[in-house]
């Protein structure tokens, strides 16, 4: 019984960086051109179920519809509300019933670094379309371990400041500059402990913003508290942040999402993107991964290969309002979506800035370096203060 309870309750991880919650809603409503299935004849026998557990929309419900039908694959999709849900299900009886997962960059990095069993290494020979990925995504460090690849990125983006140009000409140089009283009643943050603490740690000049001592963490919270009087509210998700700005309750979002500008445009409000020049911002990416003991491996490989084709990837990126990960997909995306992401960052090999940038802290303390629980508590103290 004890062992059973332990399995039931064991696990956890990474909450969504709440852009996801918006995607969940937006993707459900989006309609897109359904792409034709490629002529690639699958050598392996396809058909039957394909179990998906990931973010809503990333199952390619619209994009892969024809491909799935043609190959008689029944997509059985269930959607997560937090990144750790896959691990929870895996450890609570889901092992052997899960095929495709869609971890984000930091969750996958944390799982691989911790040697936690969840993802199986991919046979890249079975995903030839992955050759078309942008250089940054081919050998990205958050996707690889011991020379093996564990994920195929499908979308990416950054978290810049999003602001109303009628109120602000430009962003200040640093995040700490938002403490200026001129921003009073104008700021909205995202409820994301790691993103916010990381940005302010970087702004304070800390060399490794994801590896902080207790004293440094306190210093960061103090800096954030100086900004707090100017903050109107803390958005539950990127969609919620956009809503706050569209309503005119705030005019500047920190740690936003470029797609918020398109959401606002649809509602007749002009928002633009721009981050503090000295501090910049951080990047995210989601990937397709294969669960350990996946029961429908052939279907899963065929799906991942299909969805990584330029046409599929472009359609998916457009549907989810995100950056595409396949080089040839770039030209297939409308400029309205394409131009809001800084693609220079993914044209470099080795993950580019996405690879070197680690936003989440270590899961457990490492010597003087505090673990993620301390960050969460610091964020709660910031919110309570």
């Amino acid at each position, binding site marked *: 019984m004890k062992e059973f309870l*332990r399995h039931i*309750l064991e696990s956890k*991880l990474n909450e969504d960086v709440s852009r996801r919650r918006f995607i969940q809603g937006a993707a459900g409503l989006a309609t897109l051109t359904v792409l034709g299935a490629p002529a690639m004849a699958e050598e392996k026998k396809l058909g039957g179920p394909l179990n998906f557990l990931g973010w809503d929309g990333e199952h390619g419900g619209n994009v892969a519809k024809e491909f799935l039908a043609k190959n008689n694959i029944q997509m059985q999709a269930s959607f997560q509300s937090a990144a750790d849900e896959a691990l929870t299900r895996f450890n609570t009886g889901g092992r052997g019933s899960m095929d495709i997962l869609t971890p984000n960059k930091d*969750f996958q990095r944390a799982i691989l670094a911790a040697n936690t069993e969840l993802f199986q290494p991919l046979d890249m020979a079975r995903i030839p379309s992955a050759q078309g990925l942008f250089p940054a995504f081919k050998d990205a460090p958050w996707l690889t371990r011991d020379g093996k690849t564990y994920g195929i990125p499908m979308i990416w983006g950054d978290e810049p400041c999003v602001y109303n140009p009628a109120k602000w000409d430009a962003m200040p140089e640093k995040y700490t500059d938002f403490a200026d009283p001129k921003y009073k009643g104008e700021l909205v943050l995202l409820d994301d402990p790691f993103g916010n603490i990381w940005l302010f740690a970087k702004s304070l000049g800390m060399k490794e913003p994801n590896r902080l001592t207790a004293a440094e963490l306190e210093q960061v919270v103090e800096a954030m508290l100086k900004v707090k009087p100017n903050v109107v509210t803390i958005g539950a998700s990127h969609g919620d942040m956009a809503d706050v700005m569209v309503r005119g309750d705030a005019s500047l979002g920190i740690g936003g999402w470029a797609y918020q500008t398109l959401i606002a445009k649809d509602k007749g409000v002009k928002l633009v993107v721009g981050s503090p020049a000295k501090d910049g911002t951080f990047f995210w990416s989601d990937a397709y991964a294969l669960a350990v003991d996946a029961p429908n491996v052939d279907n899963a490989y065929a799906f991942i290969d299909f969805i990584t084709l330029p046409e599929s990837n472009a359609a998916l990126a457009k549907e989810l309002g995100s950056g595409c990960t396949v080089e040839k997909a770039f030209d297939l995306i409308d400029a309205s979506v394409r131009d809001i992401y800084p693609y220079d960052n993914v044209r470099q090999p080795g993950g580019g800035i996405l690879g070197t940038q680690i936003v989440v802290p270590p*899961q457990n303390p490492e010597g003087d370096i505090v673990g993620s629980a301390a960050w969460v508590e610091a964020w709660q103290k910031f919110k309570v203060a």
Partner: protein
Amino acid sequence: MTATTGTTGRWGEAGVVARPLLPASLFYVVFFAVPMLALFVLSFWRANGFVLIPDLTFDNYEKIATSSLYRVLILRTITVGFITAAIVVPLAFAVSYVMRFVFETRGQVILQLILLSLFSGYLVRIYAWRTILGKQGLLNSTLQWMGLIDRPLEFLIYSNFAIVITLTGLLLPLAVLPIYSAMSNISRDYLEAARDLGAPAYTLIRTILVPMALPGLRTAFAFAFLLAAGDFVTPTLVGGTQSLLIGNVIADQFRGIGSNWPLGAALAFVTIGIVLTLYFVVMRLIRWVTTW
């Protein structure tokens, strides 16, 4: 087989009563009692990164007892719960009175209209309040249009005020139901007799209406206080930067990197304990006031 055993079986009268309760009881045991027990056991465990370690430690409870963070949050949560209940219950009482005794023939129609609001989703209703209370919302725009204010009243949204107003709007229909139901059983004759004997309105309320509607009031208070104290969506969406409640922190402990399920479980049980204790104290007080 006797007639008696034929109708009640070997379980006797108690069995006749218990059998219909069995499905619901079983449901509650499986889907409520067992998970709560698991959560209680979990509150004595430890978390180490992604791994939960079975243990029998009081560290989580000690942390809650010694941390000013949680004390502040629990106090704030209880305050919001009480204030909300203190507004919702009298309002619901007044609405129920009007439905029962003033517009007696239209009571059911009014009730249906009140219940209509429950047909819209919980989140939709919260966003509707955001539309009403926002800087450029309905209320501020109207007040500015009427020339009563020069600039938007910022306290209306993203504040504890907004939480209480929104929760009041959300919970009022739920509070009206039990009170109206209880008042339906109060005969108008009692009120008229009391009035004829010269009882002022206050005495009439304290000695007739409240005692006779007490079961409904009790349920309404439970709905308003417990649901307000346990809510974490409303504070998130209309609460602003000073309105984090204990529910938000408990939710944080169960999701994301850095979460701590055992601490979350302990926080949940401490909150349940405090809230239930206060609930019973208030029930005692109401009983005492109405029999005094």
